[in-house]
């Protein structure tokens, strides 16, 4: 008995091949388009190709499901931290369970401190005012809720922990929020701060400076879980061991002042403002960080250097909310270097700390004059003295609005070419005061009547009328100085300082406020737009 021929065998070969080729081509077209969609980077037309195939042929449905399933497993495998997810769900559920405690600060932030206390008495006001109020409340509520959700999405908390306990905190300082009043003593278990800033003193003496938007909760008085936002911690004398738990690791204090900032995208930034901390993360193990060092941590990468950290000092009138300086960086690639530039918004004033790696020198007025008015309230970059030894040193930062950039350059030496080409000497002078007598950089300087050593600095400036990047060079001796005498052998100028003052474009002609005879150069060298 002969085997019946299949239908396809009756089709002439050339046509059979054409159909096969067509099917292959179709499959390739689907596979390519589907691959790009699964990868999240489709080309125009990909969706149409895929949906047509999905609707017409079941095998393509299985194909895309197979790829999405593997893709999901790979992403899940890559996370390696299912505990963080589980913990984030736990936090969200706790928030559900303990709404009355958890949301108290949110309610007060949104509705004011009298929320819930006024009973039925209310002053309705006119309807337009009321609707405006509700609009404001709704916006705040949305902000608070998105903060809550965003922080939970960020990955929750790294170390699974028991449900936390309330901690008695005393409010030390309040800025820009109605949720707290100075002197309040509150049993706080969780903190959501949609706006403003608040300083909280714990029973151990630890001071937490919380900046919005922030979400955190206490596990116990010595352990804070930070889901999102920035907390500066000053542990005082009895708070050693205080720990901040973040989605990617723990920061354990070893007697210090430090800052932790957890962002919504899951990255955590840790900076040591004085003393020492220990970082413990799954990715990096245990790492010690010292005064002036900062790192960025994420769930997937080893700790990386964080180039600049914003330092907000109390007592400064922060006329502007945000600094005009962004993205400070340098080309120093020393292995394991983790030093950060201090960025002090509105911080330029008489007596401000000058360098990150020297505690005592301060920028002060020249003895014969007042502190230059134009510098007051400028954003300050605290640089590193040690960088004066880097021959090819470059420092780069960007400004977000029209600004006057000031450089304070060691007045004992001729300025380098990069400075004279792009900047103008204003004729003003300030000094870096407070060098130890053993300091090499202050060699040859005679102490003043109080025994203080001060290095005079000329104030140079240039105006930038558009947002731009600024690149500065090293504090090197000019050829003139190098060729002069052997007096300069082995000697280097002190590291320069930087301040940036925003200017309003229409009212500030860059030449107007400069001393007579000064000129303004607009040169592309060293400036990147």
């Amino acid at each position, binding site marked *: 008995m002969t085997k019946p021929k299949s239908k396809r065998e009756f089709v002439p070969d050339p046509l059979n091949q054409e159909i096969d080729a067509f099917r292959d081509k179709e499959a390739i077209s689907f596979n390519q388009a589907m691959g790009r969609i699964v990868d999240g980077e489709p080309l125009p037309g990909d969706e149409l190709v895929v949906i047509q195939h999905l609707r017409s042929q079941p095998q393509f449905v299985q194909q895309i499901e197979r*790829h999405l399933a*593997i893709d999901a497993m790979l992403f*899940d495998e890559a996370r390696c931290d299912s505990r963080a997810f589980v913990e984030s769900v736990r936090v969200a559920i706790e928030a559900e369970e303990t709404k009355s405690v958890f949301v108290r600060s949110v309610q007060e932030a949104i509705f004011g401190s009298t929320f819930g206390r006024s009973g039925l008495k209310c002053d309705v006001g006119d309807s337009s005012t009321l609707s405006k109020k509700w609009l404001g409340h709704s916006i705040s509520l949305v902000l608070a809720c998105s903060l809550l959700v965003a922080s939970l999405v960020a990955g929750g908390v790294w170390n699974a922990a028991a449900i936390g306990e309330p901690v008695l905190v005393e409010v030390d300082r309040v800025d820009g929020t109605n949720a707290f009043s100075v002197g309040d003593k509150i049993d706080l278990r969780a903190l959501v701060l949609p706006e403003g800033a608040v300083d909280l003193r714990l029973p151990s003496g630890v001071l937490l400076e919380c900046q919005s938007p922030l979400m955190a909760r206490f596990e116990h008085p010595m352990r804070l879980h930070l889901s999102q936002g920035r907390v500066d911690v000053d542990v005082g004398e009895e708070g050693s061991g205080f720990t901040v738990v973040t989605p990617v690791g723990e920061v354990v204090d070893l007697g210090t002042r430090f800052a932790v900032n957890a962002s919504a995208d899951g990255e955590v930034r840790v900076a040591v403002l004085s003393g020492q901390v220990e970082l413990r993360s799954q990715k990096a193990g245990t790492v010690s960080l010292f005064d002036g060092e900062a790192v960025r941590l994420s769930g997937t990468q080893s700790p990386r250097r964080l180039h600049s950290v914003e330092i907000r000092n109390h007592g400064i009138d922060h006329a502007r909310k945000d600094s005009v300086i962004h993205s400070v960086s340098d080309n120093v690639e020393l292995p394991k270097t983790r030093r950060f530039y201090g960025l002090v918004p509105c911080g330029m004033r008489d007596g401000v700390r000058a360098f990150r790696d020297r505690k005592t020198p301060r920028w002060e007025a020249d003895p014969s004059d007042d502190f230059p008015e134009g510098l007051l309230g400028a954003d300050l970059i605290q640089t590193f003295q040690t960088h004066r030894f880097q021959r090819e040193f470059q420092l780069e930062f960007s400004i977000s609005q029209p600004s006057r950039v000031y450089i304070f350059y060691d007045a004992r030496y001729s300025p380098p070419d990069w400075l004279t080409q792009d900047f103008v000497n204003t004729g003003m002078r300030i000094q870096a005061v407070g060098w130890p007598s053993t300091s090499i950089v202050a060699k040859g300087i005679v102490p003043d009547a109080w025994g203080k050593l001060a290095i005079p600095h000329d104030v140079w400036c240039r105006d930038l009328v558009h947002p731009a990047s600024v690149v500065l060079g090293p504090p090197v001796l000019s050829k003139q100085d190098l060729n002069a005498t052997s007096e300069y052998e082995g000697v280097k100028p002190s590291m320069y300082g930087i301040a940036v003052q925003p200017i309003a474009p229409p009212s500030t002609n860059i030449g107007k406020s400069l001393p007579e005879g000064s000129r303004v150069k607009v040169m592309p060298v060293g400036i990147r737009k």
Partner: protein
Amino acid sequence: MAKKKTNTKWFMEQVENEQSGLKGFIRMLGVRPESVDDIAQETFVIAYRKLTMFERGTNFGAWLRTIARNLVRNELRRQGRRRVLANDVAEFLLSRADEKSTHPSIEVEKAEQHEQRVSALRECLQKLPERSRKLVQQRYFEQLSLGVIAADEETNANNVSQILFRLRSALSDCIQKQLGNIGT
């Protein structure tokens, strides 16, 4: 109060058991990888809130998937729809998931079955050649875009996507084979 604590403990155990499978399910509805955790978490929170409506002894995973489907449906109704890959594809996958859910013969993958698949995946990853492992590392562990990987490999994004496609196919076949071996 004691009952509530017991409920929470039981629920958190379910979160640990079900989270991985639920995330895979959500991804298969066409949700972007970066939004999967987001929707999974919302699913668990809603499930906790409505826990009294869940009948103990029935399939908790299937109940979670119903909530997740509704969340994705809401997402598709929204303006912007940033959390899904491609609207039409996501709608198609969602409607298919709806159909499956009403079909009694199709069972939801149990937590232990999912765990077996994950173990198989781990073994298959070990068998990958060095270059493919590097690509998995770049794409899934470091979450680099196709363009960045392409620049690193001196090729174009389309090629990278095609290599990833073949890689996923190979892993899927390998997992099937592994699970087949377990079954025999």
